């Protein structure tokens, strides 16, 4: 277990999230506060509808809280405009989704490079880094393939590579093994664990699977919108 006195990668303070459907307001997150330290691998667990994914998306800047703040490296990002938030997504964070979310008409290399391309970088300037990442995720021989030519496990590896390409401060993963068979799921978890161990990458992961959560340093359990 790493020391919790290290630097804070992301901090949520008094996060409240309400969903309004028709006349009904559902309180999904009820005043949650948490800190994740740099290089930490945290799993967020909970039953369906507990609010764990909502918490992840709010921490990762893909969603905004109804109340409360989110800070990354001490900077409050919850009030950022679209332009600033997009830059944060390109440069400071990486996301891995359950359904991979790859762009079907871009090949593996282009998908991995996407955050950097959106940041105005050229593929040719990142060739070495790209090859390294492809090597790490084991897809060197698949770099010119499109997502539809890859298996589920391979697609998730591309998604992980894409999330890591810009050397983000934090990697968010929403049920990264949820759509994979157990063997492939275990491989993906092994990969995430090794990335965390070898390069000190901060990872916050939502998972249903206790098996997957075992790879992390800390497990946060969410139930009915609060951290247990």
């Amino acid at each position: 277990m790493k020391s919790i006195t290290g630097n804070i990668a992301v901090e949520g303070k008094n996060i409240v999230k309400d969903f309004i459907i028709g006349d009904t307001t559902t309180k999904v997150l009820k005043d949650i506060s948490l800190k994740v330290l740099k290089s930490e691998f945290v799993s967020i667990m909970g039953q369906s509808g507990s609010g764990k994914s909502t918490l992840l998306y709010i921490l990762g800047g893909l969603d905004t809280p109804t109340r409360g703040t989110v800070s990354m490296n001490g900077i409050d990002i919850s009030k950022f405009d679209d332009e600033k938030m997009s830059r944060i997504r390109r440069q400071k964070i990486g996301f891995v989704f359950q359904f991979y979310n790859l762009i079907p008409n871009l090949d593996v290399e282009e998908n991995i490079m996407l955050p950097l391309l959106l940041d105005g970088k050229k593929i040719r300037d990142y060739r070495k880094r790209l090859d390294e990442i492809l090597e790490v995720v084991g897809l060197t021989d698949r770099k010119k393939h499109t997502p539809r030519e890859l298996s589920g496990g391979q697609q998730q590896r591309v998604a992980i590579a894409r999330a890591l390409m810009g050397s983000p401060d934090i990697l968010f993963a929403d049920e990264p093994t949820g759509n994979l068979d157990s063997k492939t799921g275990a491989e993906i978890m092994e990969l995430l664990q090794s990335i965390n161990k070898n390069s000190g990458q901060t990872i916050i992961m939502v998972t249903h699977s206790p098996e997957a959560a075992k790879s992390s340093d800390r497990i946060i359990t969410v139930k009915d919108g609060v951290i247990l």
Partner: protein
Amino acid sequence: MKIILKYILTNVKERKTRTIVMLLSIVLSAVLLFVSFSIGTSYENAQQKMARGMAGSAAISVSPLSPDDTVGLDDIPELTSIKAKAGMLEGSALYHEDGYYETIDLIASDLSLLNQINKPRLVSGGDIENFTGYKVILPDRFTSKYGIEKGDTVILQINGVPTRFEVAEIASYDTVFLRHTRGATALLPESTLAEILQKKNGYSEILIEPAGDVSAGELADTLTEELSGRPLSVSKVVNEEQIEADARQKSMPFFLISFFALTMSVFIIYSSYKVITLDRLPIIGTFRSIGATQKTVTRILMLESALYGFTGGIIGILLGTVILKLILRGMGDSLSAGIEIPVVITPAAVLLSFGTAVIVSILSAWIPVRRASRLPIKDVVLGMVEEKHMPNHHAAGIGIALLVVSVLLPRLASGKFLYPAGGFSLLGLISAAIMVIPLVTNLLSKVLERVYTVIFKNEGMLAARNLRDNKNITQNITLLFISISAVIAITVVGNFVNTYITDVFNGAELQGFADGEMDEDFIRQVEGMEGIEKILPVYVFNNEMQCQDHTFSRLEATDNLELYNSMFHLIYSKKDMEVSAISAFSETRSILLNEDVLNRNDYEIGDSLTLENDSGRNTYTIAGSFKSRATDVEAVIPSAYAIPDFKPAVYHFLAYTAADPDSIMIQIRDLFGNTQNWSRTVEEFNTDALSTVGVFLEPMFSMTYLILLLAAVGIINNLLINYIQKRRSIAMYKSVGLSNRQNIKITIIESLTSGIIGAAIAIVVSYLEIQTIFLVAGPKISMSPDLDFKTFLSAGLLGILVTLAGSVVPMVKSRKMKLVEEIKFE
């Protein structure tokens, strides 16, 4: 069944925007089909009415062989195949005012009989009463031109004698007053005209209407047999086949509109249904998982499309009827004399439009629905369905082959195969383009990727990459190209038909002409007029020059064939013929023949013809053949030989060009003084023609707007579909850092590029379509379409603008997009 219906109705209600767009496209297609079918029929009907003119419902005419004789009603046998008959007295007169001469055809009949076959329609309404003595009924097209009112006195010169008539009534330019030649028709009391013509015991002709199902041909045969041996001639009033063929040619743009409307609606409904079924996959999965068979799922979805078809068809026909009435009323009103144009709604048009709306809806939905219902249940339930990828090169290969065949076929076909070949070519060109578009887009995307990277940086590169293998983009381009090419083809063909009908002098150099007796001194005076540029006096032999059995209806002689060619825009049958004819005219007795005369008499170039009139005879060699719309001359000979051979006393026709044609015309009319002449500027002539015929074409242009509206609905529908399918992909981009500004930039680049590709393909395809249309119609017309690049360019730009405007909605919607909802939705 009840639950299925409830499910369908809930679907329709929940997806309001899509339902409206789908319904709108079906309604508009049905309206366009219905109106274009019905307007074609109504137009044919009006054409027939005009061609029949005085004859009305009569189809047969019996007249004496000698114009000096008469024919009586008693001369016609009582036959059951005859419904009605009316005797007509016919004479001619001249009306002269301010240098204008108008030919007036005088007619008279027993009004009770005339009313049976062609009752005159008075402007004031009501019936003709107290119509005796020196009274006249004139059409309002004539009276409004000369400011004549009811009760005025007009002077008509009959056989050179000025005769005064009181204008008893003013009639609509309709029924007996309708004519397709210049001048006007005047109705006189029967006894008055009989007295003037000194024909008190009979008529100039008897017009006969056949009974019920008896055809004109059958009655003509019967009467010819019954009247054999008598000095009478039986003939059909009009050549129905010719009228039908003429009307068909003029209603061509309307059918073109139908064709495009149909193609577009198929595409719109098909693409909508593809998305609807994709959207419904979870429901399909649920149905299948609880035991619904493939057939049941297909039936449920098909029932929904049938509902759209039925509703759209019914609304379309109702709306179409209103639009048709408005258009036809507009047509009638714009004619200065207000021809009553019947609204002809045939059951065939109703059935065809309704049937098409329903069948197109069902068939367009069938392919995607069938595909969806056949998917493995597990894949559907787990949301693992991906669109099948057809290898592009197969479709593109077939497309290229089809393109080649479609371009070549109308060029190779002839005779009765020409029309089917044309139809195949039009459909083939569109289908080929649809098949080739993915390949073209992919290739262009590769080129543009490099170009855009330089111009628009990485966003440009991503936009170009997004074009590749992107079905939404190819669908957009396809719809755009169909819409733009429809607008281009309809505009070009419409303008052509307009010009063809209303501007017979198109391409001819002359700006004015005079028809009357003119001697050398007259010509010299015209030559001396200020501002005159070119002048071509012509000797005219009307119905007097004979050659074996053929009498030339009009033969002209000129001393300057080169000028004659340009003045009348003579189109020679072969390219080098013009040069050889000019040289032959200066060297020997040569004759140029109208292509019709050449073919009808089986003459060959180089044959010798002996021409003969009352003054002499001589042999002329055929130096060439031509067609021309500016002159109805049958033959042209050199005046250097015509003068000694046939001794024409004066010129009868003069064509000229001038800086101010109007001023020359006024001076020419002045020179003629009180001598009979018919002198017009080309502009004046065209204005006259436009006021009667051109107005028939106005509805076509209003229909073009409907086509544009359908195209706009289609494009918006597609952009909506595009957004529905693309929003997840936008969310994916945004999740890795795409900002709104970048999204707008990429969307604009994508829209602009797909707009440009669609417009470029449309320009090429519509050019090929126009070629096909004129290759098919070509043998019957002696004029080429005016392919104004501006039309192509502006239609293309319009398409690009519509696409750009349509991308505003996705841009706005994606700004407000809830990222998490889109990403988590699977």
